[in-house]
């Protein structure tokens, strides 16, 4: 019985229905939570794993028509600030209506399916959390257990995305896994010289590929509870530690990083998310280092912003940019052009308190708009990923929190309402309405179109600590309810020993059912492992046009999910290469018009917790066999419409700023164009190709 119905029943009893109705009206507008997930459209209520594949297909044929046949609600604008006025989202219908001349819809879009190949691919690395010493070692180990990370990047420009995978315990090396192009990997860490980072004073926590000097080769940043390490890619499979001369020498307890060009000067800057304040956790003098409030902590590490000087050095500009007042426990940082003004904005996901949203002032500074745009929350924010999940031309944000038996925060799917007539950008949390509220103890989560139907889906990792049968939560409760307890003192936290804490949790895969609802189908898709997930990276590891997943797990082995969706839709992939803009084209926006729908994709530099996905632009096309229009808006401001004849469907194309579509070689890449594994749909069985034969 719904809340409204429950009170209605009660109201009859006292025969004062009118008064009750007034009260209900107040509740529904003020205090009532949004509708529960069960109120959202559900594609498959059977829950039967055996039946799900068929049911999902038949349902989505109705609810999730391919991109090509659906008109967008409103054409998005990537023009000047402020953007066009847009209607608020609640209750809005899914975009629908066929555009004249659209290709026929694909019959029964397929269920999504993955196969875990980590072991046979040579990518079954085991992560180790840092072991501490002393009386409260296990508590500190718990609080620093977030560092199982993966960064995707084609460091050798051979046309296949490689993996950098972190470890965190003292003396344990991180790993560079070279993609052999045949779904196998070779560990080249030693030859590359990038294994170091875990030492008695530092814990590796994250990693990022980015070309900081625009020389056409991806450099590598290793993030630590400590000082970061910057490796310059020497171009011969080797890397050189350039940290000392880079200026990135500030100690911080960093857990997240993104590379983005906040001032559009053509060089990638760095934003670090810092969890603890900058104290040496491995040589703790003062035990008062934990959160001072478990809902609104203010003693975290905040963020640090580093400006790339363009000469191989960085300088910290946190205060100058207006970010210095943030003192939250930052677990993830994300960037995107949220107000469609051509400049990159920032979302900060904070543990133990309020997430923060900053808009770019276009002068090297940011202004905080948290209260007016998203409100003040008290949740345990852990992930920031960005995509236009409903294809309305405005980028939305997905934040994971904690939703478990003992704590029901719900995630936040921030639907971007656009900029209103007064120039104000606002968001509405539609996680309950869309069915994406619960991912238990959430960690990394990524938007990606796994079935190439033109709608971005969501994969979310979860699970904190899987250990013995005993549960830590009741033990922790006694500490929490102790009067006047000082949460900051690590000595006040009860030992965890072999107890579990939100462990053994099944991962979640939410399939987008046309922009207004998602269906959870991790089990059918084969990705419902129960490891202690952390990072989620998405990349097309075998260049077959279907996006694969790499999941890292704390103190547990990583997983590589090869996408084997049997009848995924058509697709294109674009590798953008900046010339006036930063070479990685981070911040570039691709707008594709397909069958009356407008799809936008933005290249990001490491959005999502503890992971970096491929910087390639991937667009699923459903049954469409042509694109009607495709434009790239580069960070430099250049808008480039690409000639459609140069963009074959089911292919990876290279696009160079100002030069349009170019050969892989001309873009500085090698093997994909002429190597052993050409990047096209040939990897798919002919019978499995959607919409008939490939063009």
């Amino acid at each position, binding site marked *: 019985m719904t809340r409204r119905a*429950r009170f209605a029943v*009660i109201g009859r009893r006292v025969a004062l229905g009118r008064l*009750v109705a007034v009260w209900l009206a107040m509740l529904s507008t003020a205090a009532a939570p949004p509708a529960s997930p069960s109120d959202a459209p559900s594609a498959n209520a059977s829950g039967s794993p055996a039946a799900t594949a068929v049911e999902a297909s038949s349902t989505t044929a109705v609810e999730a028509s391919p991109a090509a046949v659906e008109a967008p609600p409103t054409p998005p604008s990537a023009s000047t600030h402020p953007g066009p006025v847009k209607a608020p989202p609640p209750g809005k219908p899914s975009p629908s209506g066929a555009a004249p001349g659209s290709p026929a819809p694909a019959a029964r879009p397929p269920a999504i399916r993955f196969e875990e190949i980590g072991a046979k691919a040579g990518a079954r690395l085991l992560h180790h959390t840092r072991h501490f010493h002393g009386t409260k070692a296990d508590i500190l180990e718990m609080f620093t257990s977030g560092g199982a990370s993966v960064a995707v990047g084609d460091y050798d420009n051979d046309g296949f995305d490689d993996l950098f995978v972190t470890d965190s315990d003292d003396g344990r090396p991180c790993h560079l896994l070279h993609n052999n192009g045949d779904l196998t990997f070779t560990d080249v860490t030693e030859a590359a010289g990038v294994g170091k980072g875990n030492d008695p004073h530092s814990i590796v926590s994250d990693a990022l590929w980015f070309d900081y000097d625009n020389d056409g080769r991806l450099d590598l940043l290793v993030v630590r509870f400590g000082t970061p390490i910057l490796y310059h890619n020497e171009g011969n499979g080797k890397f050189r530690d350039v940290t000392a001369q880079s200026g990135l020498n500030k100690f911080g307890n960093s857990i997240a990083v993104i590379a983005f060009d906040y001032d559009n000067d053509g060089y990638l800057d760095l934003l670090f998310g810092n969890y603890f304040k900058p104290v040496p956790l491995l040589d703790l003098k003062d035990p008062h280092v934990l959160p001072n409030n478990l809902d609104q902590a203010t003693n975290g590490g905040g963020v640090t912003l580093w400006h790339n000087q363009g000469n191989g050095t960085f300088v910290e500009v946190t205060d100058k940019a207006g970010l210095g007042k943030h003192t939250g426990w930052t677990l993830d940082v994300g960037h995107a052009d949220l107000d469609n003004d051509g400049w990159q904005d920032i979302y900060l996901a904070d543990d133990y308190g309020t997430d923060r949203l900053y808009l770019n002032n276009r002068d090297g500074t940011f202004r905080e708009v948290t209260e007016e745009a998203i409100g003040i929350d008290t949740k345990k924010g852990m992930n920031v990923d960005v995509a236009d999940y409903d294809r309305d031309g405005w980028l939305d944000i997905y934040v994971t929190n904690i939703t478990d038996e003992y704590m029901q925060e719900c995630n936040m799917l921030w639907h971007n309402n656009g900029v209103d007539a007064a120039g104000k950008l606002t968001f509405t949390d539609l996680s309950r309405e869309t069915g994406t509220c619960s991912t238990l103890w959430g960690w990394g989560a990524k938007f990606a179109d796994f079935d190439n139907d033109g709608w971005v889906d969501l994969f979310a990792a979860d699970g904190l600590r899987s250990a013995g049968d005993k549960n830590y939560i*009741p033990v922790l409760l006694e500490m929490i309810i102790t009067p006047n307890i000082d949460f900051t003192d690590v000595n006040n936290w009860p030992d965890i020993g072999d107890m579990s804490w939100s462990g053994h949790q099944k991962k979640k895969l939410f399939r987008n059912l046309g922009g207004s609802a998602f269906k959870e189908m991790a089990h059918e898709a084969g990705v419902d492992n129960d490891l202690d997930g952390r990072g989620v990276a998405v990349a097309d590891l075998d260049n077959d046009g279907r996006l694969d997943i790499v999941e890292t797990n704390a103190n547990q082995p990583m997983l590589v999910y090869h996408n084997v969706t049997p009848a995924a839709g058509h697709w294109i992939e674009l590798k953008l290469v900046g010339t006036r803009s930063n070479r990685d084209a981070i911040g570039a926006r691709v707008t594709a018009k397909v069958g009356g729908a407008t799809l936008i994709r933005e290249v990001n530099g490491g959005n999502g917790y503890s992971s970096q996905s491929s910087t390639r632009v991937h667009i699923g096309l459903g049954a469409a066999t042509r694109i009607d229009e495709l434009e790239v808006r580069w960070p430099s401001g250049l808008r480039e419409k690409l000639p459609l004849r140069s963009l074959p469907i089911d292919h990876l194309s290279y696009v160079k700023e100002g030069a349009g579509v170019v050969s892989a070689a001309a873009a500085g890449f090698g093997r994909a164009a002429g190597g052993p594994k050409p990047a096209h749909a040939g990897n798919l069985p002919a019978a499995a190709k959607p919409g008939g034969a490939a063009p």
Partner: protein
Amino acid sequence: MRASGRLLAAGSLVVGSLALATSGAAPPAALAAPASVPSGAPAAGPGPAGSQAFAQGGKALAAGDLPAALAQLEAALAADPDNLRYASVYRHAIIKAGEYDRALAFFEKLVAEHPAAPFAWLNYGYVFVDKMPAAGAITQVILANDALKQFTRSIELKASWIALYTRGNSYLYWPKIFGRAPLAVADLERAVAISKSEPKRAYQAHAYAALGDAYWQTDQPERARATWQDGARLFPQDAGLEARLRLKGDELEAYIADQLDRTKRVDTDLHELWEDK
């Protein structure tokens, strides 16, 4: 994490009345004239000073003047600290104003000045419950626990039906992992026993429903059903008992879960105590 008490879920009249009052309608009956509380009330009725202040508070509420209303209602409670009705109206005005910390400070002082007033303690506990929707998940746990402490103090002073029902019901909201359900059984069994020795009142049905829920949560479905049946025999018009006996399996499970949904504001309105005779 949130746990609290679904107190008298049938409540809403006072809140609904306030909605009318603030929209300019005539003062509702609940506020029109102070009255002593029929169940569990102190032996002596409210004094004239409290009565007058309560009436003034009602007028201020009707006029939409929350600051004045709160001041008057606090004066009424200061004069009559054990008055459940005054406290109930005051707390709902507090909810409307969002001034939970003011109410906490007020009741903290009130119980310090009147440590032997069981219903002052009870209402002190309710304020913690009232504040929960405005708090974060961890703070809600702390508030829920603080509420339990005040309920316990109230029971120690006077093991009333309302206090036992309140605390027992509060335990039901705690997630199973915390093992509070057996405590709920104990309190609610006492509440039902007390109701059997008192004049029959419709609100007593809530204790039967909650006790059945407590048995349900402790994996005693037969005892749960028997308790609901006992209640339904006494209170055949009670919708909650009727629903529990009508529903089966997953539907019943879902219904009980909905009654104890921690994401919803818990109704702490006590109007039934004096309006339901």
